């Protein structure tokens, strides 16, 4: 199979994830969409790795997975904290960092 297909799939996944980040307001969903974007990147790396026949891409994917896991931990931790403090679970409401 040609590499293009993998890349098209990866691009589609990334776009879906990014649109999700832009349009959804629930932090949990946004985190899900971020995971989607990371997976898209991982897919592209795997495809290239396969094409070039070396293992570097796979190593990168492993690292990306680790980072993704960490990120989810922190992100979900924040969400839980927000829930406990009975803050609205809506990213547009949380703009205390406005300059």
């Amino acid at each position, binding site marked *: 199979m040609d590499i293009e297909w993998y890349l098209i799939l990866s691009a589609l996944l990334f776009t879906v994830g*990014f649109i999700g*980040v*832009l*349009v959804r*307001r629930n932090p949990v969903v*946004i985190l899900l969409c971020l995971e989607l974007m990371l997976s898209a990147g991982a897919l592209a790396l795997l495809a290239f790795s396969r094409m070039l026949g070396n293992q570097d891409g796979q190593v990168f994917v492993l690292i990306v997975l680790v980072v993704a896991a960490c990120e989810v931990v922190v992100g979900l931790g924040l969400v839980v904290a927000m829930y406990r403090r009975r803050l609205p679970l809506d*990213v*547009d409401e*949380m*703009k*205390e*960092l*406005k*300059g």
Partner: protein
Amino acid sequence: MTATWAWLVLLLPLLGSMTIGLTFRVLPARTAGLIGVTAIVAAFVCGILALIGLQGEPSESRHVASSLWEYASVGGLSIDLGIYVDPLSIFMVLVVTGVSSLIHIYSYSYMKSDQGYHRFFSYLNFFVFSMLVLVLAGNFIMLIVGWALVGFASYALISYWYRRNTATKAGMKAFVINVIGDIGLYLAAILIFKNIGSVDYGTVFEKAPEVFTTNEWEIVAICLCLLVGAFAKSAQMPFHTWLADAMEGPTPVSSLIHAATMVTAGVYLIARCHSLFELAPTAADVSAWVGLVTLLIAGTIAIAVTDLKRIIAYSTMSQIGYMFVGVSIGAYSAGMFHLMTHAFFKALLFMAAGSFISAMANMQDIDRMKGFRKAMPFTAAMMIIGALALSGFPGTSGWFSKDEIIDFAHFRGGMYDWMWVGMLVGAFMTAVYSFRIIFRILPGPPCEEAEYLEEHGHVIHGEPKNPATGELEDTEVGYPGEEHHIAEQAGGMKFAMAVLGVLALIAGVLQIPGLDDVVTKFLEPTFENSVFSHMHPTTSESWIGLGEGALISLAGIATAWLLYIKRPDLPVRFRERFRWIHTLTVNKWYGDEIIDFLIVNPVKAIGRFCNRAFERFVIDGATTGVAGLTRSAGAAVRDMQSGLLRGYAVLMLFGILAIVIYFLIRSI
């Protein structure tokens, strides 16, 4: 040996000043005064010993240079802590220490009731030390040092009664004007070093004729710079305004510093640098004309003002004008001779004036003084002697010395004949104002204070008031205390005045044309290289000149008698008729106002402009402006921080897109 004595002359007053200054807490006031007097008298004795040592030398090697250590030297400019002893400096040393001794003795009694007795004697000794540094200096830097130190001492003594605003203001004025004079000397010394490569008297005067051609601009510039210093110190136009204000100081100070010694330093300077001035006749003429103008203007002011000390001060200015003319036109020994006789009779006049002022409980207005003839006969006699000498009455010292200068101007002829005429007019005015004082104070029915003195045998106690403003004064700082002192009752004052009185009368015998010329002979080694050293009027010409002087002096005294005794209504009518002349002269020809307008006010305005406008708006404005710019730049971009998470995401998207597009375009 001569040099050692000269160093001792310097050392003694300094030691006196330091001793009194450092031990003022423990030393009784009388002892302090005694130390002060002793130091100066001892210095005088050392001066005489130095004179004897010097006279022992053959006349062509009658100068000694001596130095203690290298003071400062850099890049070819080498300055020693050195002195130069020759007849001229010894002459000045003797005049200074001699008159100072008498004035110290006078002050010992006069300042008796003053709270600041130690301070006074410490300053006065320090002044004598500085003046001796000035006259003994061996190079131009030491000269500047002495020059500035006498300025400082003069300041300290003018502001001696520092509780008075008028005294501190006068001190400030004197000091700043004197510093301007110092700067003239700085520039002169720098120019001399630049052209000759040395600042030592010996080298400079020896080499000057080789280095400069007559009236070359550089030597003229040097002499003009020297003249700035001389004019400022000697209160010649246009630097004269400080001298009248300096009368705020105690009367012995006026007598010593602002009449007899310090203010004549300019004359000494010109005489000392005569070999430079002879190379720059233009500068010498400038000096002579300035002296002439000053002597005339000061004379007119002295006729108009009514403050006793200020009259004498203007008369000092006028007499120094004579000396300036004298030493500038080449009559060196005549100028120095007049310097000496003037020191005698002017110191005497001030001492007598101080006595009268004490008797008047510090009032200085001659319009209020009257009839002191009986109340204070001794002081009155001394005052008359002083006035006679000042006005050049035949036979007195002033007659011989002043007319010698006047003669010399006539003898040189040409342009100098105009000066001769001017000086004769000045001599007439001198006689008028000298006897104006006498005729106002002494004859007539006694005024309240004189009567009180006659009846009670002691002086009236006035309120402690500032004579200039009438403000009541703090008596804790200095004079006036509870008592005042007058010559009739204080031995020290009487003694000092008597000695000076005798000297003022007979000092003329030193220079009787045709008979002897002690001063000229004595000073000859100093001036022997001068082109004028062998030019002098013949004996008969001199006697004709003396005759003219005598006539003018008598005419002046007669005029004063007419105006102030015989027809006292005349001055009043004159004043009514020519009000503008009176206004002009009594306001001192608006000298203060002109200087304020031209210099003081602009300088102050610049200061205010810098403070209020420049510093505030430009310097501070630039500082706060930069800070403000940073702040407003921040404010401009802060709206981008919306806090909207999704907004940031969009921005990131566009950012990444922009980068991607950039690389795509690059790769094509």
